[in-house]
């Protein structure tokens, strides 16, 4: 998974002279990595290897896993249903990104303004971040009930969880409600770090508000957009609890994603070997996606957007 520990360069009163900057950045000794590596190894790498091993076994979750070679993998790729599930996962991931990113940028840039009313409103707006995901899902589940919920008598919302497109919409709405505040927070912080001089210069050049947003703010948010998108996309691929609690993958199998399929195969069907195969595929896909994002965004070789200021 991509490392997303981008810290905005501190605002400096007077930038150090460029000549004094060494090309090689001084890093702390690698021993500093040890605690992190130990945790990563114990709670991420080791279980990952176990899951990969389990994907070659037949196991009910009880007793000893029986090694069966590549049977699970063959079964996975020969199974038509898994492609539907994969498609649903990708579709939801795409919809999450398309809806959450523009809204988060707009809200974040808006919330970055110094006005007091904006500060008050953003504080309210960040409230969903404080709620537990399970609580949110159960809340929305009641809210979308056709007979007691808000949708009672309100046509497009009444049976929203009962149709394929409706259930997908409901999930996009709920996940957006839950996570847009977080991404807004990222953009707010980033927007506040854009130096005022850039806007001053743009004003001198005769730029309007729209031009300033398009030619100053957006390019300056580039790193944040990549960070936020990576978190969003990789997170969406492995998203489980809210979908499980809101729709259980239904109606039918319309909102069943790969993580849900994995859960049903393991804890409903007791096919832990096959479920591990699905888990392995998820790990591979999520890693590949985040690598692709990092590669094509040039994130790895990127320096601060402050460079040259």
């Amino acid at each position, binding site marked *: 998974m991509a490392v997303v520990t981008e810290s905005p360069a501190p605002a400096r009163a007077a930038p150090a002279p460029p000549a004094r900057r060494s090309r090689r950045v001084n890093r702390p000794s690698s021993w500093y990595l040890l605690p992190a590596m130990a945790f990563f190894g114990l709670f991420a790498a080791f279980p990952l290897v176990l899951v990969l091993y389990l994907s070659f076994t037949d196991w009910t979750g009880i007793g000893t896993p029986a090694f069966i070679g590549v049977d699970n993998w063959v079964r996975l790729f020969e199974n038509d249903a898994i492609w539907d599930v994969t498609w649903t996962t990708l579709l939801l991931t795409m919809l999450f990104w398309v809806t959450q990113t523009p809204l988060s940028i707009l809200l974040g840039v808006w919330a970055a303004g110094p006005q007091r009313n904006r500060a008050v409103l953003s504080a309210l707006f960040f409230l969903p971040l404080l709620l537990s995901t399970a609580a949110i899902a159960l809340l929305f589940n009641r809210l979308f009930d056709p007979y007691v919920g808000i949708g009672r008598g309100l046509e497009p919302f009444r049976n929203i969880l009962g149709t394929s497109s409706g259930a997908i919409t409901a999930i996009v709405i709920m996940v957006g409600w839950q996570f847009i505040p977080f991404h807004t927070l990222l953009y707010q912080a980033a927007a506040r770090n854009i130096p005022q001089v850039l806007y001053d210069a743009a004003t001198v050049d005769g730029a309007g508000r729209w031009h300033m947003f398009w030619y100053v703010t957006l390019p300056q948010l580039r790193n944040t957009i990549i960070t936020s998108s990576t978190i969003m996309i990789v997170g969406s691929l492995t998203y489980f609890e809210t979908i499980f609690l809101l729709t259980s993958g239904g109606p039918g199998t319309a909102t069943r994603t790969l993580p849900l399929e994995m859960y*049903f195969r393991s804890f409903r*069907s007791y096919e832990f070997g096959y479920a591990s195969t699905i888990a392995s595929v998820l790990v591979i896909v999520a890693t590949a996606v985040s690598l692709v994002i990092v590669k094509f965004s040039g994130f790895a070789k990127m320096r601060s957007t402050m460079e040259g200021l």
Partner: protein
Amino acid sequence: MVPQRLPRRSFLGLVGAGVGATFLGTSACGTDATGGGDGGGTFQVWVLQEESQQDAHNGALERFNKNSDVKARLVATSNDGYTDKLHVSMGSSNKPDVFYNWGGGSIRTYARDGLLVDLSPHFEKDPAWQDQFLPSVLDAGMIDGKYYGIPARGMQPIILFYNKAVFADLKVEPPKTWTELLTVVDRAKSSGIIPFALAGGDAWTELVWPEYLVDRIGGAGVFEKIAAGEKGAWGDPAVRKSIDMIRDLVDRGGFGDSFASVKWDGAGASTLIAQGQAAMHLMGSWEYTNQVNDQPEYAKNDQGFIAFPTVEGGVGDPKAIVGNPTNYFSVSKDSKHVDAAIEFLKQEMASDAYVKQWLEAGDVPATTGLEDKMDQAADPAFAKVVFDMVEQAPSFQLSWDQAIEREKAQPMLDALSKVFLGELDAAGFVKANEDAA
């Protein structure tokens, strides 16, 4: 934001929260809060966390603990996370000593792996114990010809509940045949009332329909072949016909047009019928217990209950029933207190006090000699209907999702919910089940 950045940790966290969401066998730590059965001479009794059931369970434990050196301790878990938690702990060294289950598929894996105490020898030694329970209910809990469970609560046949007030308004009688049922459906619909309440957000609530229809049309043998895994058993004409009938019922508006959004949790369907927005509800006897708890007015005055209607031309016995014979208590072989656990079940599961508590809660326990105790029930008329239903039934089919092999249950439920949504026809349903085999 933990869930998005650290998916694995959120999975582990969920197990701890009882939602159960990990694919890792190594995560059994999620359940260690309840510890093993050792130390201080106590053993654990795992039950569901449901208010309507706690009185009976607590009473049984108190009575047992009064005279026993080894004490029983109740561990209650919510319905949603219970089976996940149970499965993880059965694979670990922290197994529960005594645990609540549904018989059939819910314990088949454990029984076959030799994790459960076979109760058959105990019955042979003490036939009087066995005679305290209705044979059909005991037998329904058998796995591979052996007894692993003692009936723990009431019998749960699927019953056709109807709202008497709504029926009076519609000027219809409770349906005795499928044709009459369709007449009631059409009449209700034209009066703006949902004919059948259905929590279609959970596929198991829909399973009661093919269970009864296949039995009425083709008899008990059709599903016995399916459960036994016989090739081509799903293709039986009775299965196809019942799926066609279900699709017809859905198309007629038999369940309203938004049943797929209604979840079982939250009592959406039960509220609909109690408030008179729906006319009928095909559901297990636990529906009655829930209504006594949640809508006592309705339960007392307007709740009607009859057997599932016959289907014209069907060869099945009209007295046959389906559902969950009951819930059972099973004992782990690993338990340090197997003897005490069995003693507990022997002393309490058919005790007068325990039976009385269930009857008051609206359940009808699966014990013999209940006729004399009927007047203790919350509603003696209901208790009598359930008792007679079970006693006279030539067969009591265990719910399909428990009766068939575990890995085939989920595909079956998926296919059935697609039938109700109009996405699959009879041929598609049969094929989906055959593919899963």
